[in-house]
């Protein structure tokens, strides 16, 4: 819903909250259900109301637990039976500088202030450890906003007795904890309040009258920020940008003005703004966001524009360049198909409102932010939260490279008449084995991102994945694939639970970029091998249909499993005896990770 995308109008959301919710619930879109516990240090009613809307808009239907007023610490450390049985998927600790108990006094010496800092941090650390221990779920924790007055003026920030100084140090301690703790995410209200305007944000009348720790109209910004973290945790981030060229990546029209006529570089304010925007996009690429072009242009003009000596983005930075006179919605649909991602994973960036409207109308779920003037481009993309980072690993760093290699593979495939010959020419080597620590984050990320080649679409949080990893009741496999064009990274995960002589497959997923390479067969071969070692005599596979995983409906059938049941919703159960199984992978050289 456009009203909930950046830049939203907070007063509109506050006023229309009930009818917005009604509309969202009636729009017929499929949503995942999640339970969210909000442990507040101040009033949280409207925060939850607004968070609910942003999550619905992001495809998440949330059920909430709300602490009694300011009971965040009690709920974390001594949770009630009701709270324990709620079993949250996420705990959000909404504390603010109003909740700091041990603030420094002017008469304190350095040792006392250090002690206060330690005590305050220990109190929070105890809260987090208790949450992890009791709920085994990711934690979202506010840092602290700056105080709304400074007793010592400017010196407040550098003197150990200043509250500004104290809060900065406490925030740093939170960041250090976040850096070494999986499944712990900071909601940066220090940035949000600065961005909003600290004076307005901390208007004390909202605290004194209602015990809200921020002004009412700032609540949507806070809720939007939390919703971005949650949607990122549950794999609902965008993956790629489809960028227009003329008046989007440079000023002017390259086909009319010529390469020398377009505005990009250091010449004037406008060309510098485009330069800065290109540099921002290039940084997104280094985060693993896939860049593509979608422009109405002759191909050669587009390439000439991208080769402008003053520009930062070059043709090489884009995995796919669609510069033609086709309709843009069609180009974007093709781009999605070629990348093996869903159209809704693409953000369309175009200065032309008519193009944006057509694409949004034709491709459900594609977002097209309002790009009204070049000086606002970075702010608009950045504040929209499309690419909120919650995990960041080596594969993210290399993603563009990997998609580029894939494009080269496709080119090579075209030169072979026989598909088997092509696969042989790839020199594929796979490592398949039990989970190892360095890949746990990537494995968890895959369970939350994979929609198409995913038999059960079971999502795992980091904590749940660690439990599976430590349990003796599971057979776990990850698969990593390398070929002559490069390293595809971890591309497949299988988790099966051992019950008596049968292995029940809880999860089987694979990244679509290695489809039809024999990788799924190689995974099955190793799985059967592990079953033999564990005294398992049959494997039971489950397929639960979703809107997106139709491609694997018959996967177990093609493996040689026998279908043993099917219900009215299309859920199917399959079985394969271990005895007599013969390996199916023909083209990949497989080694174990041990």
């Amino acid at each position: 819903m456009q009203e909930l995308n950046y830049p939203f109008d907070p007063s509109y959301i506050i006023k229309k909250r009930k009818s917005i919710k009604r509309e969202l619930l009636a729009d017929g879109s499929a949503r995942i259900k999640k339970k969210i516990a909000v442990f507040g240090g101040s009033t949280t009613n409207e925060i939850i109301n607004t968070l609910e809307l942003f999550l619905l808009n992001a495809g998440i239907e949330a059920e909430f637990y709300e602490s009694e007023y300011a009971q965040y610490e009690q709920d974390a450390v001594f949770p009630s039976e009701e709270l324990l049985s709620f079993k949250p998927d996420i705990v959000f600790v909404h504390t603010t500088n109003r909740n700091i108990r041990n603030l420094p006094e002017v008469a304190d010496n350095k040792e006392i202030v250090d002690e206060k800092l330690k005590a305050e941090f220990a109190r929070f650390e105890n809260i987090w450890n208790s949450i992890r221990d009791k709920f085994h779920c990711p934690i979202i924790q506010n840092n602290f906003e700056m105080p709304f007055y400074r007793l010592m003026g400017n010196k407040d920030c550098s003197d150990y007795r200043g509250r500004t100084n104290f809060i900065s140090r406490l925030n740093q301690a939170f960041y250090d904890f976040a850096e070494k703790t999986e499944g712990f995410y900071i909601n940066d209200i220090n940035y949000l309040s600065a961005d909003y305007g600290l004076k307005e944000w901390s208007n004390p009348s909202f605290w004194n009258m209602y015990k809200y720790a921020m002004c009412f109209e700032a609540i949507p910004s806070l809720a939007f920020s939390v919703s971005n973290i949650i949607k990122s945790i549950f794999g609902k981030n965008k993956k790629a940008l489809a960028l227009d060229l003329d008046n989007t990546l440079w000023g002017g029209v390259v086909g009319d003005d010529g390469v020398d006529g377009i505005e990009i570089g250091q010449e004037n304010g406008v060309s510098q703004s485009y330069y800065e925007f290109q540099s921002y996009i290039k940084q997104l690429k280094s985060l693993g966001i896939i860049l593509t072009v979608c422009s109405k242009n002759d191909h050669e003009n587009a390439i000439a524009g991208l080769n402008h000596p003053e520009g930062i983005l070059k043709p090489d930075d884009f995995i796919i360049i669609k510069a033609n006179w086709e309709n843009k919605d069609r180009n974007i649909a093709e781009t999605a198909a070629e990348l093996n991602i869903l159209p809704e994973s693409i953000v369309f960036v175009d200065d032309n409102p008519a193009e944006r409207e057509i694409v949004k109308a034709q491709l459900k779920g594609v977002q097209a932010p309002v790009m009204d003037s070049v000086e606002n481009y970075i702010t608009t993309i950045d504040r929209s939260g499309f690419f909120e980072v919650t995990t960041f690993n080596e594969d993210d760093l290399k993603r563009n490279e990997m998609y580029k290699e894939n494009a080269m593979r496709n080119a090579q495939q075209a030169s072979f008449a026989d598909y088997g010959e092509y696969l042989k020419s790839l020199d594929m080597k796979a490592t398949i084995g039990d989970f190892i620590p360095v890949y746990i984050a990537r494995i968890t990320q895959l369970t939350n991102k994979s929609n198409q080649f995913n038999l059960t679409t079971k999502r795992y949080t980091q904590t749940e994945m660690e439990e599976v990893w430590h349990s003796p009741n599971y057979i776990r496999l990850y698969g990593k694939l390398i070929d002559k064009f490069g390293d595809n990274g971890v591309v497949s995960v299988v988790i099966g639970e051992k019950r008596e002589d049968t292995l029940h497959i809880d999860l089987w997923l694979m990244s679509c970029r290695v489809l039809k390479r024999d990788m799924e067969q190689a995974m099955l071969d190793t799985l059967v091998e592990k079953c033999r070692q564990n005294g398992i005599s049959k494997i039971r596979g489950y397929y639960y249909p979703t809107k997106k995983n139709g491609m694997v409906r018959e996967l177990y059938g093609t493996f040689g499993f026998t279908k043993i049941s099917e219900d009215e919703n299309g859920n199917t159960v399959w079985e394969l005896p271990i005895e007599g199984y013969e390996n199916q992978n023909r083209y990949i050289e497989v080694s174990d990770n041990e």
Partner: protein
Amino acid sequence: MTGNEIFARLNEVFRDVFDDDSIVVKPATTANDIEDWDSLEHITLISAVEKEFGMKFKMGEISSMKNVGEMAHIIAARATR
């Protein structure tokens, strides 16, 4: 701005906030007359009214206003739009 105009606009705000098109506010209307009007919704209402008329209530007024009539009275003195 006439009292009628203020009430017409206030009525729209009330209908939006409580998501109820049957609401008709009168000078004597109080929180007891509208089912969902509790202390939490009161904050939403005040915020929406302030936005609608481009004005702010003083802290003391928010808790002391007895009915919609008193609210309209303050709005008449302070509205900027």
